[in-house]
């Protein structure tokens, strides 16, 4: 079981000795992304194909004194061509990881979801943020804070399924899943708590995950205060936290990254290849860690 970002980086390198994954970066003119990818290449857990404006990408590499790495560059004019070419590399099997560079999330998602790309597996795509939080004894995943804006019942189950798959790929055999709610019991005062309870039950009955509980307030799920009042394997010890809204996940994850010492790894799962997606404002170590997580997912799924 991988418990820290260092574990993820080490596992990515271990898996790369079997087969090194190739990352296709759409919009590689972004110097932060180039730096992260170059670091991944130096650490020998991935190789890379940089897709974008070749002159600008070469300039970024020179500026960062990384031109000696001799990374493959694919010329693409504009955002559309960048995302299309990068996705094509994944469709052709030349790349096993897709990474967002200087392109909009919506553009790369559109290209990834295009039927002709052939990367959809009929599954829902969702974002999983895996955090190493100071004081928490293991990696903690939050979902979905970036893709599915208003999930229906089945989509909520699919979001859980995606997060459980990621957790298992990082070595959590039986992940504990907390579905957040505004109260710790289903109540008609807050209808979302009733849906949450139904999602928890459906995930259990369908065999997606054994340890799942909800609704739980964040306090009960994370601090385990509530576990003093009733028996729960999940409260106080979750591996995965699933919020009821995309905003809640997004805001909560940002609260950790801003106010707490924490490393963030973000990935979109559900397609044939993982999409490494980080924010422009993320520090380089988060971008590198995100890439390592994607490499572990790609390596373990092969």
């Amino acid at each position, binding site marked *: 079981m991988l418990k820290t970002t260092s574990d993820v980086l080490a596992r990515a390198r271990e898996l790369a000795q079997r087969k090194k994954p190739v990352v296709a970066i759409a919009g590689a003119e972004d110097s932060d992304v180039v730096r992260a990818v170059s670091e991944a290449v130096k650490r020998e857990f991935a190789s890379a194909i940089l897709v974008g404006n070749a002159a600008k990408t070469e300039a970024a590499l020179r500026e960062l004194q990384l031109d000696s790495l001799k990374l493959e560059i694919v010329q693409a004019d504009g955002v559309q061509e960048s995302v299309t070419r990068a996705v094509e590399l994944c469709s052709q099997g030349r790349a096993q990881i897709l990474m967002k560079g200087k392109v909009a999330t919506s553009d790369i998602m559109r290209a990834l979801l295009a039927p002709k790309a052939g990367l959809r597996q009929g599954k829902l795509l969702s974002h999983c943020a895996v955090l190493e939080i100071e004081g928490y004894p293991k990696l903690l995943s939050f979902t979905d804070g970036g893709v599915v804006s208003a999930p229906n019942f089945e989509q909520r189950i699919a979001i859980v399924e995606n997060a459980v798959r990621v957790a298992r790929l990082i070595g959590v055999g039986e992940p504990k899943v907390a579905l957040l709610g505004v109260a710790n019991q289903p109540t008609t005062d807050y209808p979302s708590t009733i849906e949450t309870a139904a999602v928890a039950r459906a995930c259990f009955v369908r065999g997606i995950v054994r340890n799942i509980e909800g609704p739980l307030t964040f306090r009960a799920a994370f601090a385990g205060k509530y576990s003093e009042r009733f028996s729960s394997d999940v409260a106080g010890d979750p591996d995965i936290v699933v919020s009821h*809204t995309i*905003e809640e996940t997004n805001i*909560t994850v940002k609260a*950790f990254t801003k106010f*707490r010492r924490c490393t963030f790894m973000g990935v979109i799962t559900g397609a044939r290849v993982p999409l490494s997606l980080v924010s422009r404002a993320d520090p380089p170590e988060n971008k590198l860690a995100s890439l390592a997580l994607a490499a572990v997912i790609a390596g373990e799924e092969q």
Partner: protein
Amino acid sequence: MKFSDVTAASAGKKTGSLRVCGEIEKTALDFWTKRGGKIRWFKGDVRSDLEAALAEAKPEDGDAVLCSGVDDARVVSCVPRADRAPDVTILMALELTAYPKLLWIGFSPLCDYTNIVAASASLQTMIASLQKLGEAAPRVALLSCVELVTPGVKSTLWQAPLAQMSARGQFGKACVDGPLGLDLAVSPEAVREKKVKTDIAGEADLLVPPDFGSFLSLTDAVMLTGEHRAAGVILGAPVPIAFPPLATPDHIERSVELASLLV
């Protein structure tokens, strides 16, 4: 503003009877008795306890009402409303090592924010409270997961008109902007990096999450994981109710001070 300012401002207030609802350790109230105040316990049903406590309390005599150890969702549904008061509003204040001033988080759980009249009334309640405490021109960030108005993300649809109202001066000196990600609300570096134009500029005084779940998770994520001091108050009842985020002596004392200043 820091908690030391709140404490200083409440120092001259009378100390009357503290009416306590919920589960609280007796010793956590020592600060009140040391000031010469009395404690009156209510140990029944939360709803009837709050009703009785609020009916008895006379703020002009230094009385205060405290509620703790009860889930937020339960308390909100039990608070009796004052005449013509806007929706019940929870206002939390956090003093964090990673932020240079008090960070306020507010939300009206029963408010339909898609109703612009109700939403602006909720904001006005929070803004007026901060102004009463000395923050003349609070910066209010309406939180979401994106910075653009996005039809799929419903909160952005009610947040944008409120920001527009602010731009036209409808919230007085307060600056309201949204939708904004949390990073843009509290990090000037993120604002520079993402090149988003916002008058909040990463220096928000007040965060307004888009839903009750986000409010609870945000306050707890900030509180439960780091060094902090915090206080909370419920507005919209006949008397502000001290509502400490955690039942610790420091949270309780700060919350009672805060409530006494918002009468």
